[in-house]
């Protein structure tokens, strides 16, 4: 009997710790919200100054494939969090190569970028199921009531995946965090500037608290 109980407990806790060990934290959001900027900030802060997740650009859909950094260890307020960080392509409902031409990209490159971006969106959605926690990165200068935001958050809620909203780009004058709070009042929110590192400690604290 005791042996059986021990086996059940060790199996339960074994699974629990195994899950924690391989925890995946995903960065989701629309294009150009600053997901890769935040990923780079996290890498620099916890893996070393020279380590980056990916390149950032003003041209939408700069990240067109899933990128993973393994074993990031965050220590905050006596708690430690070890996870694999997953940076995902921005989710969009439309992709037109002509939009890229306005950023002085040639037609062939723009078409290729559009093709890769469509694949990236599909991949990002497929990966939703494997996430343990998701940070939804939103641009505070944009209207938060976009359907992409609602669809991402609705899908996370339907899958019971814990969500932290990172209201990014608060260093910009047009930032309106209150509008994001009003749009998604049921989720914890941290206002940050991933680029400038503003409020980044509060972000880590909120992340550790959520997990």
């Amino acid at each position, binding site marked *: 009997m005791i042996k059986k109980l021990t086996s059940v407990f060790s199996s339960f806790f074994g699974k629990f710790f195994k899950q924690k060990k391989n925890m995946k934290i995903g960065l989701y959001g629309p294009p150009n919200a600053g997901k890769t900027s935040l990923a780079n900030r996290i890498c620099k802060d916890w893996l070393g100054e020279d380590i980056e997740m990916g390149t950032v650009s003003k041209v939408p859909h700069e990240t067109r494939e899933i990128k993973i950094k393994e074993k990031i260890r965050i220590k905050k307020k006596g708690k430690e969090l070890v996870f694999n960080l997953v940076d995902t392509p921005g*989710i*969009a*409902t*439309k*992709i*037109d190569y002509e939009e890229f031409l306005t950023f002085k990209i040639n037609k062939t490159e723009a078409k290729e970028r*559009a093709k890769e971006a*469509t*694949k990236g*969106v*599909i991949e990002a*959605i*497929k990966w*939703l199921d494997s996430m343990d926690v998701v940070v939804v990165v939103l641009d505070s200068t944009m*209207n938060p*009531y*976009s*359907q*992409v935001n*609602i*669809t991402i958050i*609705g*899908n996370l*809620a*339907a899958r019971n995946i814990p969500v932290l909203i990172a209201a990014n780009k608060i260093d910009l004058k047009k930032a309106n965090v209150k509008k994001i709070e009003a749009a998604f009042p049921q989720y914890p929110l941290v206002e940050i500037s991933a680029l400038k590192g503003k409020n980044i400690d509060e972000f880590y604290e909120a992340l550790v608290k959520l997990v």
Partner: protein
Amino acid sequence: MALTLEFVPYSEIEELSSKKRVAKLITIVKKESVVLMQGKLKPEEEASLIQRTMEDISKTFKGIELCTVDPEPTTKERWIRQLKAIFIKMLIGDRDGFTIIGPATVIKEIKKNPQKVELLLKKARRS
């Protein structure tokens, strides 16, 4: 340029599988019509709609603009109405509110604030 709105009552999609619902909506949008659907898709169906849209992007189909509108209950009534809504949804499906889906070649942007929806159209190209 004329804008065609195609109304899809909930009864038309009620019996369809998620895959068929998404396929039906995409077919209408690809005809350059704007779908005005009674009720809402499930979150998973919305995600499938985006995936399917991305798979179908071509020279002529650039994607969709999508918007769901939910009747927002007042704060005082919220929890009672939410309970009622959950019960009704269990019985007859999610018929509350409506969904707008338009082709990105026609609709430039759907601006949504809690009480207002604006459809911004693209300028017609002169041939």
